[in-house]
């Protein structure tokens, strides 16, 4: 049997006696540990998974697409300085004709990589297409799951205007499409967009590309500069309709994963320090009170011969024990939430495996930081008493000196009841503690404000993007630019109520030293289905000449209205034009540049050409319209606004719901932790006075009211401060998360402040209710007999 030293016994008994306070503090610490373990662990996990996946499957570092180049050009690309390996392939979009889906979807047809090639597939089922056979394909896992496809299943696609049967030979995933976004989509929709890897010969036959290619992948020599390689490749591909090579950081799937990683990293940097600061404050507050109550015992221990370090060790040990409880709960919660997050990733991203890091490092770091915060909170409290001479420690401390607030003027003029005066003076007697309590509760409010703003902001983004800017029901994009006559063909389709032409062309904008690849859209003059909004949200007509840049693009280019920008067209004759920026537009998704259709056609010098048609549909004739689209030669893809929007909403709703539940829990933990400990300590300090008031004839409710008044003051003062700090969080989050892919408007409605306040006040009421029993049990007889 283990024999405990007397001080160790005392420590265990203290923990048991103060279990509720200990638990409240430990939970705050656990929240800090869990968010740290989760944030660091998940970032690490996602990064390592991606890295391993990329390496094992030889994911390329430079990507280029072009119209058509002879295979012989590949040797020249491979000879470029800095290129380790290069693959030429064919990539074309085909339209899907699935029996289980009325609307047309798309299948991206890609040459299946060679066994030693780049962007290798991770085969999940079946086999790669047989080089000798025609019409075989490996399809992407998400798409196969959405349509219940298995090796042996057959599907119909429209390739170059001709119907073709494809046999599924296998199911695979690829590092290139971890986040597989279809054309014109905002969120991956595996039902409407899939990837099919077919043999190069098969695709070459289908698209008249025998001996040629239209897409290049490049792997770099370690240490080579992507920018230099891109410049050389662009020069090589320019005569073949090269549309400008991009580095891996701009590759769609990679960039979205980066955005996800940035969010995770942000969480693991902001949240844990908040929890640990609050925990340190709670430790300090609780331990100070405990030491005050045990002052005489400490004097006695010192008189018996215990040194100051033994006393200090005892109390630091008490705090460390709380921290250990918090750390253990935090480890378990962090690991559990991490597993949950891994499941979310598995659903959202196509990874072959998820390396959820079992590395002890985040756990160790979290434990050390938490212990550090706990001990830091204990230091001042312990130092105040452990070094007192025993005789001084054994005598009661000097009475607490109270003062009138501002010389008593406010109390006189406001004619405050004495109970209110008591509350105010008790709070102000320990201004730092009161401020700490206010700040702690404010953090609880702020954590919620800092997460709840996203609901309204996303609704706003939806409103601006899908209601006020994109006003069509569907957009039919052609595989290649077509003469304006194509518009009339679309107008003849069943169900089309209104149709407006559009021309979109890949360009590179440059201004000064900055440049960006974007799509420049020419929209119909006098049209209604595509609207430009000014930064003040007023509609504006597309310009007769010059271009309108989205605010984000203008920021990146450092261009303002009135500046001239250089536009390098990445299609056709690749002309370079100088154009005037005539205005800025509001836009939250991607980088955009707009002009009128006629102005764009003039710029390109290709005559009246269009590349897409926006249509307003009669809902009753939708399926007839879909059927007509499938029959349209040269149709590239069809974007349906309601589907895009629904997918966007569903995904956002799910992600935000999960994070909101987590944040609600975290805020409640802080609020209960702070308020409950504050109330317990206040009760411990004022218990004698409150019992005396009961003797004088105050009711239980009136006595509880005095204590609750103090809590209410702390909680109410914390609200505006919490709103302020939370708004700061929201601003920081908006800035940290805005990328070239998307930006989020910051919209904070009253509910963003009201909901956190209600939640935190609710948590405070719960804490108040938890101490009510102790107030009711105040021993009136005891106070008559004892000196404090």
């Amino acid at each position, binding site marked *: 049997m283990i024999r405990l030293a007397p001080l160790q016994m005392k420590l265990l008994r203290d923990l048991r006696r103060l279990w509720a306070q200990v638990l409240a503090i430990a939970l705050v610490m656990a929240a800090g540990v869990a968010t740290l373990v989760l944030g660091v662990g998940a970032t690490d996990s996602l990064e390592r998974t991606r890295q391993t996946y990329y390496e094992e499957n030889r994911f390329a570092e430079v990507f280029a697409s072009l119209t058509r180049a002879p295979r012989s050009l590949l040797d020249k690309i491979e000879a470029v300085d800095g290129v380790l390996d290069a693959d030429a392939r064919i990539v074309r979009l085909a339209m899907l004709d699935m029996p289980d889906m009325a609307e047309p979807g798309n299948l991206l047809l890609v040459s299946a990589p060679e066994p030693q090639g780049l962007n290798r597939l991770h085969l999940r089922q079946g086999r790669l297409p047989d080089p000798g056979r025609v019409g075989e394909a490996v399809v992407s896992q998400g798409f196969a799951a959405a349509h219940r496809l298995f090796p042996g299943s057959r599907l119909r696609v429209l390739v170059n205007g001709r119907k073709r049967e494809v046999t599924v030979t296998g199911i695979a995933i690829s590092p290139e499409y971890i986040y597989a976004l279809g054309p014109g989509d905002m969120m991956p929709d595996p039902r409407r967009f899939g990837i099919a890897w077919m043999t190069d010969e098969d695709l070459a036959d289908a698209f008249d590309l025998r001996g040629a290619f239209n897409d290049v992948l490049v792997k770099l020599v370690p240490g080579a500069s992507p920018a230099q390689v891109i410049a050389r490749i662009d020069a090589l591909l320019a005569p073949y309709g090269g549309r400008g090579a991009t580095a891996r950081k701009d590759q769609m799937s990679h960039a979205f994963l980066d955005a996800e990683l940035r969010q995770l990293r942000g969480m693991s940097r902001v949240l844990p320090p908040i929890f640990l600061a609050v925990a340190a404050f709670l430790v300090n507050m609780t331990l100070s009170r405990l030491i005050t109550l045990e002052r005489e015992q400490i004097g006695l221990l010192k008189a018996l011969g215990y040194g100051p370090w033994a006393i200090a060790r005892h109390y630091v040990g008490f705090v460390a024990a709380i921290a250990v409880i918090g750390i253990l709960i935090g480890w378990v919660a962090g690991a559990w939430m991490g597993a949950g997050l891994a499941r979310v990733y598995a659903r959202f991203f196509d990874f072959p495996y998820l390396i959820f890091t079992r590395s002890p490092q985040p756990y160790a770091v979290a434990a050390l930081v938490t212990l550090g915060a706990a001990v830091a909170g204990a230091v001042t409290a312990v130092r105040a008493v452990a070094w007192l001479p025993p005789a001084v420690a054994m005598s009661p401390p000097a*009475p607490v000196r109270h003062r009138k607030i501002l010389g008593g003027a406010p109390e006189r003029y406001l004619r405050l009841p004495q109970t209110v005066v008591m509350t105010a003076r008790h709070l102000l007697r320990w201004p730092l503690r009161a401020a700490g309590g206010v700040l702690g509760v404010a953090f609880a409010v702020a954590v919620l404000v800092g997460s709840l703003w996203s609901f309204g902001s996303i609704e706003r983004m939806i409103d601006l993007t899908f209601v006020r800017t994109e006003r069509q029901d569907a957009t039919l994009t052609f595989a290649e630019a077509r003469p304006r006559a194509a518009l009339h063909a679309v107008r003849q389709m069943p169900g089309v109520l209104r149709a407006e032409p559009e021309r979109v062309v890949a360009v590179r904008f440059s201004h000064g030293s900055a440049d960006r690849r974007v799509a420049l859209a020419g929209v119909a003059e006098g049209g209604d289905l595509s609207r430009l909004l000014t930064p003040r949200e007023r509609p504006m007509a597309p310009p007769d000449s010059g271009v309108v840049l989205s605010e984000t693009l203008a920021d990146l280019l450092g261009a303002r209205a009135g500046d001239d920008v250089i536009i390098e067209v990445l299609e056709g004759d690749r002309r370079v034009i100088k154009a005037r920026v005539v205005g800025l537009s509001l836009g939250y998704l991607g980088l955009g540049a707009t002009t009128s259709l006629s102005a764009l056609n003039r710029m390109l010098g290709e005559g009246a050409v269009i590349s897409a048609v926006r249509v307003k549909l009669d809902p009753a004739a939708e399926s007839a319209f879909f059927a007509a689209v499938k029959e349209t030669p040269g149709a590239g893809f069809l974007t349906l606004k309601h589907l895009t929007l629904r997918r966007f909403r569903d995904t956002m709703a799910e992600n935000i719901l999960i994070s909101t539940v987590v944040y609600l829990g975290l805020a409640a933990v802080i609020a209960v932790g702070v308020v409950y400990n504050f109330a317990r300590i206040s009760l411990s300090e004022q218990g004698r006075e409150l019992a005396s008031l009961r003797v004088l*004839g105050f009711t239980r409710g009136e006595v509880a009211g005095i204590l609750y008044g103090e809590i209410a003051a702390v909680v109410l003062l914390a609200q505006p401060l919490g709103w302020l700090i939370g708004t700061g969080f929201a601003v920081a989050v908006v800035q940290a998360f805005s990328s070239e892919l998307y930006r989020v408007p910051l919209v904070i409605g009253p509910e963003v402040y009201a909901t956190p306040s209600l939640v935190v006040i609710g948590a405070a009421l719960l804490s108040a209710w938890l101490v009510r029993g102790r107030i009711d049990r105040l021993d009136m007889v005891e106070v008559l*007999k004892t000196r404090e």
Partner: protein
Amino acid sequence: MDQPVPIFRVHGLTKTYRSGTVEVQALRGVDFEATAGEFIVILGPSGSGKSTFLNIIGGLDQATSGEVWFLDQELTGLSDAGLTRYRRDHVGFVFQFYNLVPSLTARENVRLVTEIARRPMNPLEALAMVGLEDRMHHFPAQLSGGEQQRVAIARAIVKNPEVLLCDEPTGALDSATGVRVLEALMQVNGATGATTLVITHNAAIKDLAHRVVRFANGTISGIEENPVRKSPAEVSW
């Protein structure tokens, strides 16, 4: 001559404390009466039951059996809320350790009670009665023990209570200060006519009372009347 009004009537009062399997009989059938305006000193050794008795008639504790009547109200039948009401309206307490609210000044401690009392006197009047009107803006920590106890007396009588219950009011004070506190109590008893019960260990105080009640072993072992009361200045300990 008018029959004196009985303020308290106590019959067969018992109180048993239970702690696990151990039972302690604090009161074993106490019969007692007190009339309006009386100044009664209760004497007895520790554990004799005198504090338990005072707590029950003060509405701080429940009896195990027996009856306690305050005027025509039976205290032994009251709920916790009823007892609170009783204390609030009718009883003033003075404790050994003063039990003032440290964050309130002398006057504010007194005002604390006037805010919940039905027919209070002016706080200043109560402080003047104990001779502390010039110290009313001081916090308890700035007052001596005797002064604090006089503030406690002012706080107890400001509600114009029918009864003033004092448990060892001079227990923490030296002789000279104690005398001043006793003077204050007698002065208040005379001025307000509140029936005053004072528990003490200090037999010297018994000469100030109209009646002296002795407790021993949970019962009243004797009651004696003082035909002539001394003034506090004449006693010392």
